[in-house]
């Protein structure tokens, strides 16, 4: 591979990597949201049984 | 012209406070002379006058920052800003009054700074003085507003340079250009353009910085 090819691959790779990092962030956020909604569902369930 | 008299009253109040307390002005003076002395040791022996003129602008910007960090201190310490905002005056007058007061301090310090620079490094020409005056307008207009923003934040003095320096880059370009270019007209025009644009923006938006 010539150096020009390497740099071009690196430039496109960085864009790709940025989007992958974004996927990781979204994944972390999703799992947090899952945890929170589970807590809230639990809370709602216990409330229903209380009444 | 009640707007203008409001502005002058507010500016006069700041000047009188400073004359009584003498907090900021001596600090700025000492700072600018110290920094010029530091620059003497930072410049290698072969450096020409243009390099020194570039450093002069760094000294001026940082001295201005020192003054701006204290700009809203009187209001903050006595919680007077809320009162001012509620007072029956146009809110932009509060900004303009403060900017005028800061301008007076800065100009006073710069008289000494330019004299010291001329004595230590290189002669100062008319274009430089005009450039400094024009840059001061921009520094005071933008800096006063940013200082009001910083005063609302938790990190106050820490954040002001971060907010101010990117906005000061065009002023440094215009100022350095005016000091060293053989034909400074374009740079002075650019400084005037900066002043006009940002003064209007600050004048129109200050109200939102101090109200909810």
């Amino acid at each position: 591979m010539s150096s020009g090819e390497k740099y071009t691959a690196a430039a496109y790779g960085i864009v790709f990597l940025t989007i992958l990092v974004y996927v990781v962030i979204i994944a972390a956020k999703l799992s947090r949201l899952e945890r929170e909604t589970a807590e809230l569902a639990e809370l709602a369930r216990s409330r229903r049984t209380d009444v | 012209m009640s707007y203008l008299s409001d502005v002058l009253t507010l500016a006069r109040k700041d000047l009188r406070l400073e004359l009584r307390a003498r907090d900021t002005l001596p600090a700025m003076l000492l700072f600018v002379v110290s920094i010029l002395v530091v620059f003497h040791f930072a410049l290698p022996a072969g450096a020409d006058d243009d390099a020194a003129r570039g450093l002069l602008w760094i000294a001026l910007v940082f001295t201005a920052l020192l003054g701006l960090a204290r700009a809203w201190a009187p209001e903050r310490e006595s919680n007077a800003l809320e009162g001012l905002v509620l007072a029956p005056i146009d809110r932009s007058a509060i900004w303009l009054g403060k900017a005028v007061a800061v301008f007076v301090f800065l100009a006073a310090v710069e008289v000494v700074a330019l004299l010291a620079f001329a004595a230590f490094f290189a002669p100062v020409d008319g274009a430089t003085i005009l450039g400094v005056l024009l840059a001061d307008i921009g520094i005071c207009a933008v800096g006063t507003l940013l200082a009001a923003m910083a005063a609302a934040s938790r990190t106050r003095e820490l954040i002001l340079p971060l907010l101010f320096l990117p906005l000061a880059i065009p002023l440094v370009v215009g100022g350095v250009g005016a000091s060293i270019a053989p034909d400074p007209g374009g740079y002075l025009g650019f400084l005037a353009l900066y002043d006009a644009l940002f003064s209007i923006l600050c004048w129109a938006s200050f109200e939102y910085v101090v109200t909810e």
Partner: protein
Amino acid sequence: MSTSSPSNRVPFIAAAAAALVGLAIVFAFFVAPEDADQGISQRIFYFHVPIALTAYACFGWGALKALLLLWKKEERYDLESYVAIHQGTIFGAMTLLTGSIWAKASWGHWWVWDSKQLVLFLVLFLFYSAYFMLRFSIEEGPRRANISAVYALFGVVLIPVSFLAIRLAEDFIHPTTFTRDGPQMTGTMFLTFCIAWVAITTLAYALYRVELVGKRLDENLRELREALTA
């Protein structure tokens, strides 16, 4: 939050972005001819420049939402303005990185002060990084929304002013030794560029909408929690 706008179009926008970016990559590497002067590294241009243009668009969009916030005082504009500027800063960082690689490939240095666009992006990157510092050191509320909005408006004035300043500075810092002329683009090259531009813009818009969905979800959840624990 009662003002949430419909999010059911988000998957469609994201799918369109994916398809367009795929098409742009195919065009950039297989359809567009090789540049005679710069060789393969010229192909960085097809992503670098659209990313830069998109970053400007994000900053502009953020400032527009900021203006709407100050004008109409609706809370949702604060979030929209913030998300747009966040997006713009990420795209700005990508511009700096790809631009730096391009500089290394064409001129042998990781950073060239001669490239006006790169210098401008560095200034903007610093400016908008300070935006986040400012925003996160003010208590949440209308005051923070207002201050963030005013700062965002400063940004759109700073962009042309800085650009002018950087052009002026070139005269005394050092004369330009090599210029990057607007590449002499052939028809196919220009088509590739346009496809890439549309693709990146759609991608940015999709990411913007996804971020907004997430942030609104957070807010709704917080409200729900308050209602349940009250």
